[in-house]
């Protein structure tokens, strides 16, 4: 018999909790966090994608919605806490890129 050391380290650490998920009818404030470089004259990109969502989502949800959009300063890095704080209190946050 051999004694093992867990290569995952202390697996009893409590993982960070996911933000609470709201039911669609409750969603009124939607924010976008872009994960890509922004080109005003480029092809498909997140800004254009979010404009489409801003048109489609109120139709789907049947209510007026409030939108907020930001771009990460460096697309390859996780957003800094200061920027994440801007999204506290929003009902839903969509983070992504579009190609």
């Amino acid at each position, binding site marked *: *018999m*051999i*004694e*093992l*050391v867990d290569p995952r380290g*202390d*697996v009893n650490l409590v993982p960070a909790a996911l933000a609470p998920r709201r039911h669609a009818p409750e969603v009124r404030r939607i924010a976008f966090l872009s994960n890509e*470089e922004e080109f005003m004259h480029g092809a498909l990109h997140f800004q254009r994608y979010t404009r489409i969502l801003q048109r489609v989502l109120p139709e789907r949800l049947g209510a007026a919605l409030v939108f907020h959009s930001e771009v990460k300063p460096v697309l*390859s*890095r996780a957003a800094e806490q200061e920027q994440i704080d801007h999204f506290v209190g929003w009902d839903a946050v969509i983070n992504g890129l579009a190609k």
Partner: protein
Amino acid sequence: MTRPEELALPARIDPSDWPELSYQLGLTDGLPTFPPDRSVVERLVAGSGLPGDFVVGAIPPRGQPGSVRAIAANAAMAGCLPEHMPVVIAALQAMLEPIFNLRGIVCTTHPSWPLVIVSGRAVTDLQMETRESVFNGGGARANMAIGRAIRLVTWNLGGAYPRRPVQEVMGHPGRMGYCIAEEPVNTPWEPLHVARGVDAPSGAVTVFGCEAPQVVLAFGAANLGSIILARVADQMRAPGNSNVHTGGEVLVCITPSWARTLAEQGWTRRSVQEFLWERARSRLGDIRMNSDGSPAVHPDDAYYWWPDSVDQTNPDEMVPVATSPGDIHLVVTGADSLPYMAVCPSWGALGGFAITRALPEHSTEH
């Protein structure tokens, strides 16, 4: 639903049960491993010269604390010896510097992975291989075990599993283990770490996030530096290479025999870097195009990562693949035979920048 890697690891097992257990618990990426036997792990901890509970850093993407003991458990699975541990630890410390952006390198869609490059006296101390088949270990235990340990640390402590959250589209063979050594003796030039301004009597580790090597042959070319280096530059500026669009840094490997030939013709590391930087350029209008094929030169389309010296409104601007000559990293390695070279494109300006750390004095002697 409980994922395999969330299942508890038994405290004690029969060693013959390890292979199946490691797969059932998702503790390996598919390759077989050695069991993280506590007696072996403690010898590796001792080899690191650090306390077992010393935390090197949070290993992304999960952010699990990377204690020396947990790192040693992964190194044991990889087949490391105690004298390999200072290299593993130094490499991880370098990768965890914020500017390296290890989280990004691990999770990106791009096929980059941290290449560990050992240079100086440690190469001899650890009996690392620098000759034939260097990019797949050259048959040396240290090359393979060190690279493999880094991989398993990111797998088991970082939780870097495909799709959750790793989004790499095609994959990279180097993700199984990516470690090379620079030829320490039969080279005309100073070691990589010295060229990068790091004084390291015991040797050093440089990490660099990059793609798999693209080999450049000298067929049909005169044995003249400017001719063959121009061929290397052509490889560096291939339109599909990441650096053509995102700049940053590039790795170029040169065989010892070819490095000596270059040196006999008066080339230094610096002059090779400068030559490649001048030649490895692309016309802006040929690499950034609108959907109708016209050059994408509107000021609002400008890449923020290209230096100010690049006029992004001029379609005839020649854009370098690296930010500066010093961002083309030369490593003398490979078989001491033919004038082969290899280009490893990188993640460009988005991360994985080369970082060099000196190894502690006498740490790799055994």
